């Protein structure tokens, strides 16, 4: 290794330690007893690792985790399917002003949800879905439509017309072409959209805190409450942080390259 690359790798390694330090400190603290949290530095690993904080945090967050898992899974599936159809229609079928429609829809990716939450309470209450898993599923599916449509439109834009034209000549309609050709070919777009939606919906806080109460709250809100109330029990709080982060970290480590493609497609965090 020459001198220049030694400098580069040293810099990268020091920075990597600094980026990783908060994660490390969560991990070590989550495995320490109450006394050890106060007696030791947070970067030192526990001398007597205990699972008590993890079990305690899991007990407190169980219901929230189940809630999050339910509406996150359903809304991920529904918004991806709708995005697939819309992306196909806006890319391959097109109609008058379809580009304008797409542009107007794209604005929805960037809007601050603060600008819709107050009327959203009225709408979900009137529809009888306020404070329910169904309501959270519908809300997340709907606000996911712009970004999912974008992902699939980008994908289908790259798909050569010639692949579809052969079928068109044979007299196949749009629905047949979608079902037989576009849908099976678009599995990479489903993975990109799926991991992106799963992580963003799982990570959401605002809709959860405004539209749910008590036992219907998602894990993000339950954790935020836990952080706010038990000011002293840092090990339980860090254990809760670890548990709530785990599914997204797993997705990131296993399917990171698809998540990266989602981030690069002009995506933005809510």
């Amino acid at each position, binding site marked *: 290794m020459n001198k220049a690359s030694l400098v580069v790798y040293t810099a*990268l390694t020091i920075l990597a330690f600094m980026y990783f330090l908060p994660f490390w*400190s969560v991990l070590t603290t989550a495995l320490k007893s109450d006394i050890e949290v106060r007696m030791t530095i947070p970067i030192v690993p526990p001398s007597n690792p205990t699972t008590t904080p993890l079990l305690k945090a899991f007990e407190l967050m169980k219901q929230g985790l189940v809630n999050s898992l339910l509406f996150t899974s359903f809304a991920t599936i529904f918004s991806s399917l709708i995005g697939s159809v819309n992306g196909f229609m806006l890319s391959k079928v097109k109609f008058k002003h379809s580009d304008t429609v797409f542009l107007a829809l794209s604005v929805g990716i960037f809007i601050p949800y*603060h600008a819709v*939450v107050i*009327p959203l309470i009225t709408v979900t209450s009137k529809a009888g879905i306020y404070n329910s898993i169904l309501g959270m599923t519908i809300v997340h599916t709907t606000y996911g439509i712009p970004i999912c449509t974008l992902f699939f439109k980008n994908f289908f834009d790259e798909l050569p017309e010639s692949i579809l034209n052969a079928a068109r000549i044979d007299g196949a309609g749009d629905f047949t072409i979608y079902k037989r050709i576009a849908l099976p070919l678009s599995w990479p777009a489903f993975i990109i959209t799926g991991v992106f939606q799963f992580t963003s919906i799982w990570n959401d806080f*605002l809709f959860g805190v405004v539209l749910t109460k008590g036992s219907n709250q998602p894990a993000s809100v339950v954790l*935020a409450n836990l952080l706010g109330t038990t000011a002293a029990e840092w090990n339980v709080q860090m254990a809760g942080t670890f548990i709530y982060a785990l599914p997204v970290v797993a997705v990131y480590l296993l399917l990171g390259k698809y998540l990266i493609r989602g981030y690069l497609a002009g995506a933005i965090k809510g």
Partner: protein
Amino acid sequence: MGSHSLNPLAIILIASLATAFFFIYGLIGWNMLLSFTKSMGLITSYELAGLAQYVKAGSDAVFHVSLKNNLMLITLFIPGSIGLGLLLAVLLDIAGGKGEALYRTIYLLPFSLSFVITASMWAWMYNYSYGVINTLLTALLGRAFQINWLGDPNVALYSVILALIWQFSGYTSLVFLAGIKSVPESQINAAKIDGASTLQLYTKIIIPQLKPWILSAFVVLMVFALKAFDFIYVLTNGGPGVSTYVLALLMFRRAFFETDFPYGAALATILFTMVISVVVPYLLLSSRREEK
């Protein structure tokens, strides 16, 4: 579309777009309308009251603090994230291969996580008595160098910004790295033949070509700097005092803690207007660029 225009796909498209547009534009319009009415708290009235709620914002001291703090995010968080992102991208690009992939995975991890998670991590990092940063400062420099990261109203906003740069610089480095990879190999080789040093290669040839990538990252960061909410809500809840209030947090507290919906609606409208005046020109610009 031909005679087969009312196929199931068209029905899904129309129904889903109608729903999405109602939830986006319909509710934004509804929220705006609410801000111009005489509603009191939870009681909705559609009798118009003009700009009363906006006048109220003008005389709300916390509104001014919040705007100033959003401006601080824009002036410190954006250049910080872009600068650090550029540094990381260049280092990663020089490293290349397996090193690049491994380190990129570490730097980008914070960005994939919920703001509730990262806020919780930093609440612990910044803890005055037991947190990592102060225990390290004490060990290295002595007790006198401890900083009250979240408890000192003159420091707390900088602590928030520092942690946000940590969370977003992996993302900006990812965007810039993609930009660096798009610079044609031939240009890089030509510069090398001309005897350019590595530093010159990046500062003279590569970084000047990253402008569109920097613009796209800038828009993402700008939108975030305007609508930042969950991270600050969990980390400081606007405190100490009102020193870390931002617009979205003020809106949330006025609307949902004090149940002043019309005022919350007005603050949300102001927030929306600011975001949209950044996003729409950018979207128009990039759609025009695509047509060329």
